[in-house]
């Protein structure tokens, strides 16, 4: 934008106009981008904009870019077990994954309210604070942690993954593996279920 003859007020107005133009054309420009084209193919399973209506496929809207990228690559090389994702991830280049990560990380995460037993939720909350909060801050809803969304995530998905982490199916990061062992040893057989109940509650 040429600034030569604009006084400061015009400059300010110009800024407003430019931001308005950007906002009004954002949706139009979107589909000309590869990220939106690729994301369109994911949402048939993961829900429009990556917000899943459940009951088991996880919401990926608002996901951390690094977490998305790491996981797509570990699906691709088989280090993260899956039903379908491994077969699909093998089709994508690093650039494709980066474009999809840009797209989904810019979407808004929507926590899901699921039926949960209050006494289990209360126990789970304490366990979360004691064992998990350090890396999964804000009850596991802070994408800056570069971890998956936990709070308000679909319950069967949480169950599958905690099962896999605690049964040598999916490899947990070193600290997480240690914390999970401590949790199970110190807090008894219901600890994992209580933790899941807490995350599944809104």
């Amino acid at each position: 934008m040429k600034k030569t003859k604009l006084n400061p007020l015009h400059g300010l107005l110009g800024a407003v106009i430019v931001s308005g133009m950007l906002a009004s054309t954002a949706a139009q420009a979107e589909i000309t981008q590869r990220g939106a084209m690729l994301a369109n193919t994911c949402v048939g399973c993961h829900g429009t904009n990556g917000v899943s209506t459940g009951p088991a496929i996880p919401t990926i809207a608002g996901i951390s870019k690094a977490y998305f990228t790491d996981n797509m690559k570990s699906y691709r090389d088989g280090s993260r077990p899956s039903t379908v994702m491994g077969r699909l991830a093998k089709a994508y280049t690093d650039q494709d994954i980066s474009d999809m990560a840009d797209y989904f990380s810019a979407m808004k995460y929507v926590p899901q309210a699921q039926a949960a037993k209050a006494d289990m939720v209360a126990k789970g909350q304490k366990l979360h604070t004691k064992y998990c909060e350090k890396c999964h801050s804000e009850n596991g809803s802070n994408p800056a942690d570069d971890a998956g969304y936990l709070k308000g995530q679909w319950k069967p998905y949480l169950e599958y993954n905690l099962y896999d982490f605690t049964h040598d199916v999916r490899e947990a990061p070193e600290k997480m593996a240690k914390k999970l062992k401590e949790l199970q040893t110190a807090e008894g057989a219901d600890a994992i279920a209580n933790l899941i109940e807490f995350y599944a509650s809104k």
Partner: protein
Amino acid sequence: MLLSRRNAIKTAVAGAAGLAAMGMMPLASAAAGKKVVIVGGGIGGATAAKYLRIYDKTIEVTLIEPNVDYYTCFMSNEVIVGERKMSSIKFGYAGLKAHGVNVVHDLVTDIDAVGKAVKTKGGQSYAFDRCIVSPGVDFKYDAVPGHSEEAANTTCLHAWKAGPQTEALKKQLEDMSDGGTVVIIAPPDPFRCPPGPYERASLISAYLKKNKPNSKVLMLDPKDKFSKQGLFIDGWTRYYGYGTEGAMLKWIGGDKGGKVTKVDTATKTVTYEGGTITADVLNIIPPQKAGKIAVTAGLVDDKGWCPVNHKTFESTLKAGIHVIGDASVAAPMPKSGYAANSEAKVCAAAVFAALSGRDMAEPSWVNTCYSVIKPGDAISVANVYALKDGKIVSVEGSGGVSGKFDPEMRKREEMYAHSWFNNITSDVFN
């Protein structure tokens, strides 16, 4: 995105007002006021309508569909055996209207590619800049000697378009006495939902095993091979005694005499190359072709399907008209709901690009199809597709079917199948 949608709109409005105040034109889309008419409100047509409006709200989108309600074909096998309610596969068009789609309930009788207008049975004419046709499939009833459209609608049902036939086939199964025989005649390639007939045979077997254990299911097939065959046969062997004397479920392929030569729809007697059988319930899934309007509009080739440019889905026979979903020739993509949804988004992007003078992104497609072998045991096929030398190809080294039987993984696949159903129907209709 840090701006909430409401704030983004406010900002946009403020920006536009600012432009107007300065006597400048707001940045209008080159596609503003352009008209797109979509023929058919199934998965393909409804997705295309919604996503065109998402891509550009200034495009006028009209969707013409005769039915007020749509019933998904996918998951209708679960309805047939009582695992799912009919109401759960029923969808309306309120969601599309909320996106600003002009939904018209009428039957399209002609598409004029030169005059660029669609004509309806109700006597209306709708002008278009681009037309997207998603007509689904039609049946070649007489390709099964002795069969007829009338019999298909009364006694020997197809239940291959969900709706009244879904419920009618369910009732036939419920009315059948224990010890009865269900015969399913599978269609030749290509057809809608390649694993569908085999999922149906599986779920009917599960229903009978539980409710009428002396009954039998016989599948007669003109083909030697079918979708997810290894996984289906593995499951049939596990649950339905497949391959043993007295098996509940038997499949006879084309090379073993499974080709049907004649049916008597009155007595439900089927003559096939390997023998003759009289059924109590006879489910004939006829050979298929593109939906009727595609034929009327001159969009089909000599095989009865619609050839298209694989990047844009524009008909190679009629300029300005695009064909998506089951009717289009998009192989290696299958004729499935997921494929139709994926094709519709690429097609909508191509139409938006054409109307606005922009370039479209390099296209990408996905298909994921789940099949339930027995409640609690589901399998899938999943593929990613890319454009190579102008043709759709399955991306090398990716995709394929579920791994070998693992009860935990199969339970998850069923949960994912039901999640997929919720998400795709929401993506199409909400």
